[in-house]
């Protein structure tokens, strides 16, 4: 009995003070820490892949008039880094920032706005201007389809289906 208590006392004494001085002293996080996601709006095309991937549904996309708004509700973030993983433009990365406490939830909300392109037939949303410009720039070289043929980039899926016969004719190989 007494031996047990002595052993316990030794353990306590040897441990000494173990608590950190945080928040009065900074706490350093390790490399690769999953802190608050940071968005590089210049790189982002507004494609929304992050929004679809996010398990916590932090990223809300609203299309209104000629603008897409992406609202990052970082108060809901679970720091899984899926957004970083899927982003085709490497526009979002998880930073080492973890001191997120605030008394205004707005401090944890980030908004990004993008110009939308709407279907020239029906007005349905096709995508953001950045997405379409990106495709228009890359497509001719990658597929060999000339720039003036890719008018369908301005159409929604349903209108493309309606115009599919014309498109097919446009794209027909010249020898046929």
């Amino acid at each position, binding site marked *: 009995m007494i031996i047990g208590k002595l052993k316990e006392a030794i353990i306590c004494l040897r441990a000494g003070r173990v608590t950190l001085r945080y928040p009065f002293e900074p706490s350093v996080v390790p490399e690769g820490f999953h802190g608050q996601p940071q968005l590089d709006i210049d790189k982002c095309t507004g494609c929304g892949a992050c929004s679809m991937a996010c398990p916590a549904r932090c990223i809300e996309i609203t299309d209104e008039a000629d603008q897409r708004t992406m609202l990052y509700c970082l108060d809901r973030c679970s720091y899984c880094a899926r957004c970083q993983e899927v982003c085709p433009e490497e526009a979002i990365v998880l930073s080492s920032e973890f001191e997120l406490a605030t008394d205004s939830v707005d401090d944890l909300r980030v908004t990004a706005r993008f110009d939308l392109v709407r279907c020239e037939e029906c007005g349905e949303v096709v*995508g953001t201007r950045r997405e379409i410009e990106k495709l228009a720039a890359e497509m001719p070289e990658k597929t060999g389809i000339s720039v003036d043929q890719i008018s369908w980039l301005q159409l929604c*899926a349903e209108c493309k289906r309606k115009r*599919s016969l014309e498109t*097919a004719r446009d794209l027909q*190989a010249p020898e046929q």
Partner: protein
Amino acid sequence: MNVLYLDLNRCIYCRACEVACEREHGGVSRIFVTLLDWTEPVPVACRHCEKHPCVEACPVDAIEVTDEGAVIIHTNKCISCGLCVIACPFGVIELDKAGKIADKCDLCAHRLADGRQPACVLTCPTRCIQYGEFEEIMARARAKPGLTLVSAVGETGTVVTMPDRPAGAVQKATSGSD
């Protein structure tokens, strides 16, 4: 190489292909029959284009062309960016909002694998949708009277023929006006 053949002249807008496709693919149809002007049905399925803009648009190589010439989305690799949807010339890729992935015709790969033709082909009441060897299909298409042949992007992919009669069905109707 085997291709899909859509003979628009025979479509009756019954949408059996849509219901069949839906049945084969977990409740979402990947073929669309669009009715133009109430009288001109256009069944649209993936053309499995040779130049395949969707494959080129995909930033994560989730879309692949198989040895059989089918353009297939590997759903587990898809990141839902939607670029293929915009890139597709025919509007046959849609982003499945529930499943959060891009979805399109896979030529019923699971059926072809066990020797069955795609569901839309077999179910089509009017033989509007067919599937077979490219040259054979082309020969069949060329042999039909009064049809215009339109092909997809490139020289393979889906073969489409449409009636070359100018007048629509409504104009054909010979009714003494009231």
